[in-house]
């Protein structure tokens, strides 16, 4: 059987398949990116039964996916997989305001900071950790009608030498419904448009105070890096490739999946890439 590496492109195909409703036998993944794992774990319960069964079969052979699913579904912590010497991977479930928890979340972000610094990111590490925290806060702030009704979410990071990736996923109302609360963005027609407004106009649900701050912080943190930001919500998708010489955004429609999913992948050198790690290391 052929094997595939699960990254955001494969996840886009998977969303298409899931939304057609026709069961398909998928090849066994030979590896995952952190974005794909976080997304599979978070969206699993929203996918059709045939796809849930396939994900469960993959999880049997991939401890990182199993841990991610358990972390998301139980809302339990730690969701930690100390993989091998030079690489580091960890999840955190978002439930309401638990990311403000000084006992659990603060040590989590401090481990991320240390790992990123050790991977060569120096002071940029703190900015990347700040960006992840801001995105975690976005789940609390925007996935439901208010912070008390926030949808559950999952975040995760993966660090290797010269490379940092993190992912944030929730199964909430999506960016379109959130932005439409602001009269300025009430006429948006679809999630692709909504994602474009977030990225290019810093659109925010809040009707006061100007630009939204969250994604600004993400792009600010990546300013001197090569990176890829993949943002998806419902039927919209936007992929932003950033190099030190500029940024290019490609909006598209994709298969429907609930909530919002963000993958950020940065490297200190070379072209933007989304690193996948082989399954052999993860079982």
């Amino acid at each position, binding site marked *: 059987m052929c094997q595939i590496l699960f990254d955001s492109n494969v996840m886009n195909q998977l969303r298409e398949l899931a939304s057609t409703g026709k069961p398909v036998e998928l090849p066994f993944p030979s590896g995952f990116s952190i974005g794909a794992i976080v997304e599979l774990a978070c969206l699993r319960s929203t996918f059709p039964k045939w796809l849930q069964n396939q994900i469960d079969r993959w999880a049997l052979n991939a401890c990182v996916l199993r841990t991610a699913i358990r972390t998301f579904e139980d809302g339990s912590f730690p969701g930690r997989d100390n993989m091998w010497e030079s690489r580091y991977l960890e999840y955190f479930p978002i439930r309401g305001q638990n990311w*403000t928890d000084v006992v659990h979340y603060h040590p989590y972000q401090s481990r991320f900071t240390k790992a990123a610094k050790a991977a060569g990111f120096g002071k940029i590490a703190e900015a990347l950790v*700040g960006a992840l925290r801001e995105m975690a*806060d976005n789940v609390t702030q925007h996935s439901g009608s*208010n912070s008390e009704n926030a949808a559950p979410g999952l975040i995760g990071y993966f660090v290797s030498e010269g490379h940092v990736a993190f992912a944030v996923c929730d199964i909430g109302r999506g960016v379109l419904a959130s932005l439409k*609360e602001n009269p300025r963005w009430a006429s948006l027609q679809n999630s692709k448009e909504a994602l474009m407004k977030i990225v290019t106009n810093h659109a925010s649900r*809040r009707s*006061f*105070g100007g630009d939204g*701050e*969250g994604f600004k912080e993400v792009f600010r943190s990546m300013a001197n890096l090569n990176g890829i930001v993949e943002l998806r919500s419902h039927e919209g998708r936007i992929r932003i490739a950033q190099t030190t010489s500029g940024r290019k955004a490609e909006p598209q429609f994709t298969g429907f999946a609930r909530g919002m999913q963000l993958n950020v992948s940065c490297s200190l050198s070379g072209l933007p890439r989304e690193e996948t790690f082989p399954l052999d290391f993860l079982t």
Partner: protein
Amino acid sequence: MIVKFKECTPIITEGLGATLAENHMAPIAKKVVEGSIAPGTVVVLDFDGIKAVNGSYIKGTALWLWTCGRLSAETKNAIVTPRHQSDPRPYDIYVILSSLQKEVLTEFREFLEPRNVPMLVGMSIHGDEIENAILIGRTDPTLQFTFKVVAELGPCTAPQLHALFPKLGITVTAWNNRLNDLHSLRLVRRTRAGRGWTYEALAKRILWE
């Protein structure tokens, strides 16, 4: 009224994110909704012990209060009914920042300037008295000049300013508009004086940088 963030729960040294801002502002937001704060109150946001803030936190704390005050000073037509719990609502309230560490002050400047929002940072506060303060953020040069004049003179009216500066060629109406704008920007408060208003800077003395 003083809000000391280091006494807010959870105990933190960083003001990061909208959720934390909402939590820290919850007691005062509740009072705003209830209308239980005296109109014209100056709220001092005390950042003593806070080592870092970000844009979302500033937006949910200082800018939220400032916007409530600003909405109260604008015409009713401009007011959008709050749709969300965290939306500001018109309330005659003022905000002053205090005890900002260098990095926090820089973050405030970077946040306020592109938004054309001016704010005062109290450098010496005794009880309810703001002895001296600095102005951060952005005001257009005309308003900045007017604010300097008001801060130097103490309580004053538009006709008084017109009489004091006849060579400037600024009419009473123009002075009045400028003072009204400063009030809307929450830099001066005003009290009725017959058919007009008397304006006064929030701090006794402004230290110009």
